[in-house]
């Protein structure tokens, strides 16, 4: 089997996983709220007092995320952000490491509906996971 991987710095890779998971969680939350109460990007923009394009750029990754923008988007979605760090060492020790019962706390961005991201995210010596939507 001929395989291929993209080589990037492990530290940047951890950041990449975090950004990717946050985008995925925000998109899932918006999709869920869209189904539940017809919430749209325009509604988020109105709630936050910004242009719809600003919301679109944040969600698509063409505009950078900040802690404030993540918090604002989650708030406008009617979700809370929860934060935990997960030990990467423990995670590597068992592929089926149960995040919900982790003895060492993970970073988790969580929401009112409790959707859990499937992709673990590494940060420093800990895993970062997000849970939104």
């Amino acid at each position, binding site marked *: 089997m*001929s395989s*291929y*991987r993209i080589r990037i710095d492990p530290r940047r890779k951890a950041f990449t996983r975090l950004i990717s998971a946050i985008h*995925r969680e925000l998109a899932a939350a918006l999709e869920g709220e869209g189904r539940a109460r017809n919430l749209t990007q325009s509604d988020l923009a109105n709630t936050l007092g910004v242009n719809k394009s600003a919301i679109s750029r944040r969600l698509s990754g063409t505009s*950078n995320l900040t802690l404030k923008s993540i918090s604002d988007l989650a708030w406008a979605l009617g979700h809370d952000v929860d934060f935990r760090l997960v030990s990467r060492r423990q995670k590597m020790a068992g592929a089926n490491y149960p995040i919900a019962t982790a003895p060492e706390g993970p970073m988790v961005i969580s929401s009112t509906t409790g959707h859990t991201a*499937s992709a673990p995210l590494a940060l420093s010596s800990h895993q970062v996971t997000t849970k939104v939507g």
Partner: protein
Amino acid sequence: MATPSTLADRGSLLRYEDHEEIQPAERLLFLFQELADWIDGTLVYQPRIRGRDLTPLEQVEALFHDFVYTKDFTGVGHFVNIMPQGDGVYEMKTPDVRVFGWFYRTAQFVAHSGALKKDIKRTRAVDRIRREVVQARSRLNLDQPAFIRSSRIHELI
């Protein structure tokens, strides 16, 4: 006749893998060698655009990783069928990069080539790239059907 997996076994295609990932693969992503060479030789040198969190290379790495390893990956916003009339050529999108290929089967994407979004817009090269993807697909002599398509991306993911 062949499948992307058998072609990867023979070295004609590359299979994307993240050796540090402990989660099992949810989907398969195959690359032409030319795409791998473009990533390693061109994309790797592209700087992060102002206002972005990730460099173009990191954007592609994240998308490839999410496609292969993330169970709840929806593909919404990441895949565009660039010729809905019938060729089944899809554009894999990140904020700054486009990767072109096709779905061989559900959850199996064959990535043929890549380009920077800014270059695509400037040269209007999508039609040419689509033709090149179709020609490359024909040369692989894949088991039929050689590609699948759907108006609903979740049916392909």
